C-alpha cells in the first residue's frame, strides 16, 4: 500500500512549479478581475460574509486590526501630490490569490495549509494549530486569524440561523482565508460526479463573483480550454506557471499582484483604465 502510495505521489507531484506544478491537477481554479469595472461597492465582500460565516468583530477589534474580511477592497489615491484626486480612486479587491507556489504552504508545521489537486491553497481548519507562520509569510496579507472565539459575540440568537452549514464556523486559534468558496466547488463537483460529467463554468460561481454588480470578476477552471476564464487569460497573454511572462503585446493589460515575488498567483487583474481629459 504505502509503496504504491509513494509511486503514485511521485509520478503525480514530481513536476515542479516552474514547469507549471498544476498540470497534473483535476482542475485549476482561477479568477480574472477587471479593475476597470470594479467600482468598489463592497457587494463581493458582504457576499463573502454571508457565504463563508465570517465573524463580525465589532468596532474595538476592528480598530486593533483584527477584522476578518476574507475579501477586502483596498482603496488607493493615485495622485498623491495633487490637491484633488481628479482621476478618482483605485479599488483593488484583494483576497487569497491561491498561489501555485504559495509561500504559506511550506512553512506550516502541521501541513494544515497545502495544495489540493484542484490547485487551491487549502486551509484545513481542524488541523491548524495556530502558529500563524503562514500569514507571516504571505506577501498579500490575506490570511486572517481567529484571535477570539466569535460564535457568541458575532451571531447572537437567532442570527446564527443564517450560518452556512456547508462550512465550519472557525473557533479561536485557527487561521482562515478565502477558499474560492470551496463548499460551492464541492457541491458542484459532487453534482457533476453524480451526473458523470466534468464541472463546467455554469455549474457554480464563488459568492463574490456571483454578486459583482458590474461582472468585473470571472471565475473558472484554467485547465479547461473552453472555460471563460482560460480564454481571458489567454487573451491577455498571461500564463500560469512561468516566472517570466512573455507577452507578444507587452502593453496588453493583465498582471498579477507582486508577480516579481514569483508566487504564481491564480488571480489575474486587468489594469484600471483612465482617460486623461
Amino acid at each position: 500500500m504505502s509503496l504504491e502510495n509513494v509511486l503514485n505521489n511521485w509520478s503525480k507531484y514530481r513536476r515542479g512549479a516552474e514547469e507549471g506544478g498544476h498540470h497534473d491537477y483535476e482542475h485549476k481554479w482561477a479568477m480574472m478581475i477587471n479593475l476597470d469595472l470594479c467600482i468598489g461597492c463592497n457587494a463581493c465582500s458582504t457576499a463573502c460574509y454571508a457565504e463563508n460565516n465570517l465573524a463580525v468583530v465589532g468596532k474595538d477589534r476592528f480598530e486593533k486590526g483584527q477584522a476578518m474580511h476574507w475579501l477586502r477592497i483596498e482603496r488607493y489615491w493615485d495622485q498623491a501630490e495633487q490637491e484633488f484626486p481628479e482621476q478618482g480612486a483605485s479599488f483593488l479587491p484583494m483576497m487569497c490569490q491561491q498561489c501555485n507556489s504559495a509561500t504559506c504552504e511550506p512553512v506550516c508545521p502541521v501541513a494544515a495549509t497545502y495544495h489540493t489537486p484542484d490547485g487551491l491553497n487549502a486551509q484545513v481548519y481542524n488541523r491548524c494549530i495556530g502558529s500563524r507562520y503562514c500569514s507571516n509569510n504571505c506577501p498579500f496579507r490575506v490570511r486572517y486569524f481567529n484571535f477570539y472565539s466569535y460564535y457568541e459575540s458575532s451571531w447572537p440568537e437567532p442570527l446564527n440561523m443564517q450560518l452556512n452549514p456547508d462550512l465550519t464556523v472557525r473557533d479561536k486559534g485557527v487561521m482562515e482565508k478565502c477558499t474560492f468558496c470551496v463548499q460551492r466547488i464541492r457541491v458542484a463537483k459532487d453534482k457533476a460526479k453524480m451526473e458523470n460529467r466534468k464541472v463546467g463554468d455554469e455549474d457554480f460561481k464563488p459568492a463574490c463573483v456571483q454578486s459583482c454588480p458590474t461582472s468585473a470578476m470571472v471565475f473558472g477552471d484554467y485547465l479547461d480550454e473552453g472555460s471563460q476564464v482560460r480564454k481571458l487569460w489567454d487573451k491577455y497573454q498571461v500564463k500560469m506557471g512561468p516566472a517570466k511572462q512573455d507577452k507578444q503585446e507587452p502593453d496588453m493589460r493583465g498582471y498579477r499582484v507582486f508577480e516579481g515575488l514569483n508566487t504564481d498567483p491564480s488571480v489575474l487583474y486587468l489594469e484600471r483604465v483612465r482617460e486623461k481629459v
Partner: protein
Amino acid sequence: MTGTINRRSFIKMMGWGGVGTALGGCDVPTTVTLEEGKEDVVSYLMPEEYVIPGVGVWYASTCTQCAAACGTQGRVREGRVLKMEGNPNSSVNSGKLCVMGQAGLQGHYNPDRIKEPMIRKNGSLSLVGWDQALATINDKLNAADGARVAWFTGTISGHQKVLLNALLESNGSSKHYVHEVVGNKVLQAVSRDMLGDAMPKYRFDKAKMILSFGADFLGSWMSSPVHFAGEYAKFRTNKPRGLLVAIEPKMTLTGGNADLWIPARPGTEAAIALAIANELINAHNKDAAILPESVRNLIGQHSAESVAKQTAVAADRIKRLAQLLNERSPSLVLAGAPVEGQTNGYAATAAIMLLNHLLGNIGQTIESPGAFAFAQLEATTGGTADLIAFTQNAKDKNLDVAFFYGTNPVYSAPDALKFGDALKNIGMKVAISQFMDETTAQADVILPAASYLEDWGTHVAAYHSEQPAISMQQPLMEKLYETTRGFGDVLLALLQNKNKDKYGQYADYYAYLRHAFSAMPASYKENPASEEHSWNAVLQKGVIKVQTTDESLSTSIAEIDTPTIPASDSAYPLTLVPSVRLGLWDGRHANLPWLQEAPDQIAKVVWDSWAEIHPSTAKKLGIEQGSIIKVSSKHGEVTLKAVLLKGLHPDVVAIPMGQGHTEYGRFAKGLGVNPLKILAPEQEQKTGELAMYATNVKITDTGKKDTVVKIGSTDTQMGRKLVGTVPVEQVRRTEGA
C-alpha cells in the same frame, strides 16, 4: 409550493441538527468523534418533493432593502434561508445584488426584532394579542373622521399600494404621505415638466459620455444602485469606452470611478452647466432655437470665464467639457442630489437637464419607459416634501390617527422641523415595524411586521429598466415568530373591518394575491388552463414581465428662473453635505452588523460616523485626522471625528448619514451621529422638497483626538504595483476599446 398549508409546515421541516451543524468544533481537540445520542434530529412531518435535506433550493423573491425592487433568490436549506442572490430573470439587477440586498438576511434574523404587538398604556408599552391591537385601532378608526387619518409610508408599490389606497378610500381619507430621505423628487418634477415623464429611461449603454452633476448612480441616484452599476459596466465596455466626468461637492462612488472628477461647491453646478451650454451654442454652434428666449438669455449671461470666476472651475476646463460633449454624441447629462438639494434646486436641475436637449440626447440616450399596463401597481416614490407637509398637518392638529410603515421620520426629520413635538398632537400613532426604531418607540400601537423574507407581496420598480415587470415576493421560510404579520395582512385586516363583504372572502394576503393574479389577463399566464401551474411558474421566475405601450418624450422647455449661487455665510463658512453610504443608506440598515463592518467605499471607515474635510481646510482650522470636532449649524450641532479626504471641495464638510440612532437595536444604538438633525429647514421653492445641501455649518475643534477605525494604512501604493492604471489610448491600441 402549493397552498399555504405546506408553508405552515416549514417550521416542522426544520431540523437536521438545526443551527448546530454550522459550528465546527474547531476549539475542542480534533481527536474527538461525536458521541452518539447527543444531537436531536427532527424528521419531516410531510415533506415536499423539492425539499431534500442537505441540499439547498433557490426560491425567487424580491428585495425590499431599498426602493429598487431587485429580484432576488434565496438559498433555502432545512427550512432556513441562508444566502441572498440576485434573480437572473429580473432585468432590474439581472442576477446581481448589492451590499444591502446581501445583508437583508441579517434584518430577517436580527436579534432585536419586535415579536409581539404592543399597546402603550399610560406611557408604558405592554404586550397584547393581535386581536386586541387591531380592535383598538379599528375602534379608533371607526370613531375618527376619515379625513383626519393619515398614512405615512416609504416608497410603496404593487398590491400593498392597491390595498392601502382602498383603505384610505374606505376611510374617506386622502392623507397618504410617502417619505424617503434618499430620492430624486426634484429631478422627477423637472423631467415630468420637460420630458413629460417623471422617470425616463436612461440608456447608459448607448451613451458615449456621461457628465454627472452629483448624480451618484452607482450609489443612491434613482435609488437603484445595482441596475445602474450594470448599466455602467455596459457603458464602460462599449467600444469606444464611455467617458465619465463627475462634478460634485463630495466624491461619491460614482465620482471615485470617474475619469475626471471636478469638485464643485453645492449650488454652483447649474452655473457650470449653463456655461457649458453657452460654449455648446457659441463655440460648437448647437441649435439654440429649441430653447425659449429667456433661457437663451440666461445662457448668454453665463460665459465660461464669468462662471469660472464664480465657481473656481477653470474656464478652459468648461470649454473642454463642452468640446467633449460635442464630440461624443450621444452623451448623457445627469443631475443628482447636490443639485436638487438647493432652495432653487428645480431651476438648477432644469438648467442641467437642458443640456440633454441641446445635445440632442432626448430619444437617443433618454427614452420613454412607455406606459405601464397596471398603473395602480406603479410605485409611489417618496420625498421629503411629504415629511414637511405631514409635520405641518400634525402641528395644526389635523390628525387623529397616523400609521407609520417602512420609514422612520423621527430619525430622519431635522430637529428644526420639530417633528417630535408635532407627533404629540396626534391622538393615536400606529407603527407597523420589524424593529423598535425611533418612530416606533413613540407609537401608541406597535404591530410587529414580518420580515420581507417571510412575507408575500408584489413590487414594481420605481425606475423601469429595459423590461418593466411586477416582481413577486414570496416567503423563503416559515415565520421566525408566529406573532408577526406581513404588511399586506395588516392592511387586509383593517379593510375587512371597513367593508367585510368585499374583502371578507380573503383568508389572508396570500389569498388576495392569488385572486389578483387570477384576475390578470390570460396573456400573463404561462398556462391559462391551469391557474395553479401558471402561478407556480410566476413564483419560480419571480417576475411578471409587463407589456408597455411605447411612447415618445415631449421636449417642452419652460421658463427657467436664474439658478442663483447661494451666498456664503461668514459665520458659517462651510456647506454641509449629508452623504449617502451605499450600505447604511438613510440609516435604515444601521442595525445590520455586516453593513456596519463593511467599510465606507471612499473613506474606508467602519462602525462610526465621521466628518470628511479637505486637508487644506483642515490645515486652516488646525484639524488632524481623528481629532474630535464640533460641526454646528444654526439649528444644532454634532460632535464627531474628522477624517481628512482629498475627494472633497474645500468649502464643504461631508457627514455620511445612517448613524446616530437613539433606538434601533444593539448594533445601531448610540453609534455615531445623525447629520440630518442639524439641517436647516430650507425648502426647494418649486417642489417643497427639503433643501438638504443648503445648510451652512462651521467647525470648531474640541482639542480631543481619537483613532479613526478604518481599513488601509496608506492612501498611496508606495510605488508598488497593486492597482495598475493605464491610459485609454494604450487599451485602444491593444484591445481596440
